[in-house]
């Protein structure tokens, strides 16, 4: 048994790629060893910015000799076939053996593969691993790059160590000769260092100020940052992503705590944290009360002669960035959000859907409508009292529920301002802060708390696991924003296809579903689209005379009066465009309504992921005509609960039997003109009782009760099939019984299409 060490040394590998690279190295090594018939042994893979290392323990030193047999053509086959078989297996014709297979004389080639030295197999594997290594982005370099065929790697590859039990495995790969030397820390170690084998590798590197185990570096950073914070009487804001990133940027990590000027704490803490993390990869800290402290922790890659010098340099950089942030924060507040919002007129939302200002206009109308129609109400959830931030006073909302009109006013106000922060300096610098900054600026302006909260949270929920807003004003704005996006893009036929969803419409639809569900909001999609479409479509038609018959410049001139020729030409162009738009309206209407089906599809996906059986979803969807997603869901959930009971399973069996019979038979409806058998009578009675109960329950949206009503049919239908012959000899009896089965089937159908249910 032997231990193998492979080190691929490179110029600095991007931190974000190191995890993938470790996986890739392990995968390729296993692939090569499998192909060579060598058990890979126990693998350890490490990475630093400047090297990838793999240690395989317990490799054999030789592979076992293998005897393989290949069956060839039968004796007497054309020479061509026999020769081809020999060539393929690398044997002479004279060496073929003849054996009997199912009574036919058949050629066999026996191939003896002697055992091979694993060192040789490794020497062949290493260039293949390097060649096939897949990086997210790779490049050429150096003299070899005079050809575009030269090796591509993440950054220049500069050295290879390949040691099997301490012996160099000789390889020349892409101009690099393998050996037993590497380099230590870029600044704390000079020249080459020799490695004697897999066991001493990590230790040799440690002496050269390199901690090769990425997890050990992560632990040093995690612990070191925590301790540095504690020593300063603070609490580290933990950030595992930053830990890993810093571990990928260092070979000898040294977490160092520094302070920045207190004044910077005037800007929102999220801004400071984002600047520190994204731009500088620093941790931040909190004080005992959980407020952001004026401290940062950077991770140096040296054991600095004087750490204070390094900290001070980092402090200056952070200070420059924070003063930019403070400059933006103060500059943005010189204008009210309302004025900022005017800037949205210059930003195109979509070529066919106008500017962001146009979108905001639509969202405001829609948010207002959602409140006025009582779709979003203030009946259930009250906003929580809001904690003061950064010294702003604690405001609590009034306890009385808002009327529809009050809500509508607040929602419209919030919607009109919700995108204004997109044109502020701060969001220009940190797009991640969209919404949040608008919320801050609104609060600073003294706008109602419902409005500032709605501006802050109207992008939510932005994915699985994100908070789903329930404050009514926020819900109205958030729903309006997403519904506008969906219907508008569908109207212009920009719907997602396959893996392409450039406007994130799938996510928007899922967010709408989450919002509706969380607040139990009853929204008839068809009613909404019908009301909303004119707002989407009319806005695009700009000329005021589009409904008039205008065909030539002379007419335009008459309508517009004495305008210049250029203006008339422009106007006539506008008119032509508008006419086309008007012509497109019917198809736009149709496409906009297809949003409902899109929602249904998203709901299916969402429910399937939540563990609801897809056949049950189909069974409810097949009923058709349902555009209230919350009601749809309630039905699906009730059905799921029902089919899992014994009654449900048996009723389903009875339903399937009835449906099968009905599918095959033809008959004309007949009144019952004979005395029905007891089992037949029992079913009729049960249906007479169950049908109105189910109908009432569905009307009241009590789907569990509707299912219970159906459950009462289970015993009668079972007994009916046991006791009654449907295919009676008398045609009128047969027809009446088929009628009865059809009635049973239809009764079940009013709750769900059971034919879609599996099992």
């Amino acid at each position: 048994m032997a231990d193998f060490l492979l080190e691929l040394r490179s110029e600095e590998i991007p931190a974000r790629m190191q995890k993938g690279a470790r996986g890739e190295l392990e995968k390729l090594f296993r692939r090569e060893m499998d192909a060579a018939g060598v058990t890979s042994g126990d693998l350890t893979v490490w990475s630093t910015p400047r090297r990838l290392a793999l240690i395989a323990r317990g490799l054999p030193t030789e592979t076992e000799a293998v005897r393989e047999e290949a069956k060839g053509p039968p004796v007497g086959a054309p020479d061509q076939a026999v020769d081809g078989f020999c060539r393929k297996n690398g044997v002479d014709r004279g060496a073929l053996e003849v054996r009997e297979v199912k009574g036919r004389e058949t050629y066999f080639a026996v191939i003896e593969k002697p055992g091979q030295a694993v060192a040789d197999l490794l020497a062949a594997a290493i260039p293949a691993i390097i060649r096939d290594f897949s990086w997210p982005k790779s490049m050429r370099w150096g003299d070899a790059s005079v050809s575009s065929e030269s090796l591509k790697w993440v950054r220049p590859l500069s050295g290879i160590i390949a040691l099997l039990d301490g012996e160099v495995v000789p390889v020349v790969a892409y101009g690099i000769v393998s050996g037993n030397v590497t380099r230590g820390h870029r600044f704390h170690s000079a020249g080459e260092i020799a490695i004697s084998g897999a066991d001493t590798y990590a230790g040799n590197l440690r002496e050269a100020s390199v901690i090769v185990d990425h997890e050990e570096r992560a632990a040093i950073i995690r612990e070191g940052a925590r301790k540095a914070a504690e020593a300063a009487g603070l609490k580290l804001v933990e950030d595992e992503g930053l830990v890993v990133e810093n571990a990928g940027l260092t070979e000898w990590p040294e977490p160092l705590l520094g302070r920045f000027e207190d004044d910077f704490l005037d800007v929102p803490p999220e801004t400071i944290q984002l600047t520190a993390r994204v731009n500088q990869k620093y941790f931040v800290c909190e004080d005992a009360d959980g407020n952001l402290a004026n401290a940062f922790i950077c991770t140096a890659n040296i054991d600095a002669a004087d750490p204070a010098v390094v900290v001070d340099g980092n402090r200056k950089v952070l200070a420059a960035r924070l003063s930019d942030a403070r400059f933006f924060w103060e500059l943005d507040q010189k204008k009210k959000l309302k004025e900022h919002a005017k800037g949205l007129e210059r930003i195109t939302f979509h070529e066919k859907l106008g500017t962001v200002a146009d979108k905001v206009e639509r969202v405001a109308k829609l948010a207002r409508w959602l409140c006025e129609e009582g779709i979003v109400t203030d009946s259930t959830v009250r906003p929580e009292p809001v904690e003061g931030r950064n010294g702003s006073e604690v405001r609590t909302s009034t306890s009385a529920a808002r009327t529809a009109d009050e809500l509508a006013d607040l929602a419209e106000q919030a919607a009109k301002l919700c995108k204004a922060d997109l044109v502020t300096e701060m969001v220009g610098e940190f797009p991640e802060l969209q919404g949040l900054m608008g919320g801050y600026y609104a609060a600073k302006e003294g706008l109602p708390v419902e409005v500032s909260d709605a501006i802050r949270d109207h992008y939510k929920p932005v994915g699985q696991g994100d908070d789903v807003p329930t404050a009514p004003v926020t819900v109205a704005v958030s729903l309006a924003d997403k519904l506008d996006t969906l219907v508008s893009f569908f109207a212009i036929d920009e719907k997602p296809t396959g893996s392409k969803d450039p406007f994130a419409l799938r996510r928007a639809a899922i967010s709408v579903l989450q919002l509706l569900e969380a607040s139990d909001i009853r929204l008839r999609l068809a009613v909404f689209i019908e009301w909303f479409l004119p707002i989407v479509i009319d806005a695009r038609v700009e000329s005021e005379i589009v409904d008039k018959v205008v065909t030539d410049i002379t007419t335009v001139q008459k309508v517009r009066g004495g305008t210049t020729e250029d203006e008339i030409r422009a106007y006539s162009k506008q008119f032509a465009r508008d006419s086309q738009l008007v012509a497109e309206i019917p198809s736009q209407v149709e496409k906009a309504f297809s949003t409902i089906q899109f929602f249904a599809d998203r709901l299916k996906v969402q429910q399937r992921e939540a563990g609801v059986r897809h056949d049950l979803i189909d069974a409810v969807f097949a009923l058709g005509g349902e555009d209230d997603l919350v009601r749809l869901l309630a039905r699906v959930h009730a059905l799921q609960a029902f089919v899992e009971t014994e009654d449900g399973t048996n009723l389903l069996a009875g339903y399937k039997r009835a449906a099968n019979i009905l599918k095959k038979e033809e008959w004309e409806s007949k009144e019952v003109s004979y005395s029905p058998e007891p089992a037949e009578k029992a079913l009729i009675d049960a249906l007479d009782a169950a049908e109105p109960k189910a109908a009432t329950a569905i009307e009241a949206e009590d789907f569990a009760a509707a299912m219970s009503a159906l459950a009462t049919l289970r015993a009668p239908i079972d007994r009916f099939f046991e006791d009654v012959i449907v295919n009676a000899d008398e045609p009128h009896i047969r027809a009446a019984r088929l009628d009865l089965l059809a009635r049973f089937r239809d009764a079940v159908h009013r709750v769900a299409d059971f034919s879609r249910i599996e099992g």
Partner: protein
Amino acid sequence: MESEVKTARPESSGIVRDPTRSFQDMILTLHDFWSANGCVILQPYDMRMGAGTFHTATTLRALGPEPWNAAFVQPCRRPTDGRYGENPNRLQHYYQYQVILKPSPSDIQELYLDSLKAIGVDPLKHDIRFVEDDWESPTLGAWGLGWEVWCDGMEVTQFTYFQQMGGFDCKPVAGELTYGLERLAMYIQGVDSVYDLAFNQHGVSYGDVFLENEKQMSKANFEVFDTDLLFKKFEMAEAECRNQIANDVPIAAYEEAIEASHIFNLLQARGVISVQERASYMGRVRDLARGSCEKYAELKAPEWAEKYPEWSLL
């Protein structure tokens, strides 16, 4: 590598060159360093441009198989970064130090670090890091991979291995180093405002040299340039570029592309280009720059292929 280059002034002032005490000494030290390492020391290109990469010594020389090693200072114009001399860190006119090494030598990182030592950055006192930063210039049809080099968390240099230029693969690849001179100097001299930098060791500050320039040029860029004239100039540069390309003079064509690019930046600063128009103008500049590079490569390709039989343009 020589890491210290201190030369007594010819006059008997007793002052020796010290890159840590004067902006010009830092530049001279870099010149000495790269000169000693085989670079042609060039002077700035005599046109207004947004980055040292625009210099023909970088763009056009990155094309073709011939080795090329050059270093130069290039003044950069970023009209929208003007702050009327009121921001200690932002300038509409500043200097980049460009080094281009083709093919990229295997010890390019070590060379670079030695150059930092030469100007007074000790990597055992300061935390030097190579942090992923890829570069792409759609305008030049160019991209590369590399890093931004951090010194105690501050980005002081862009380090790029050019992969494509003008839409052509770089064969061989050139390594490009772009030092932000003012930032480095502020760091080395330990000052918080660019205007406080010592320009020389005789009491002249960066502010003495450039403050008035920043004030006036910020005003010109943001407020004064006649936008009608700018639009005309843009079109003139565009037309001239096409004329030069049509007549097989790609270097002259390329200069017009540089001109158009700067005029576009001025139009941006004047705030007269809408978001929609912006993409279209950038596309026009890109067509000019790429067209010039393509023409240059096509024109030179036969000569290159003759000298380097193994080499091909595509």
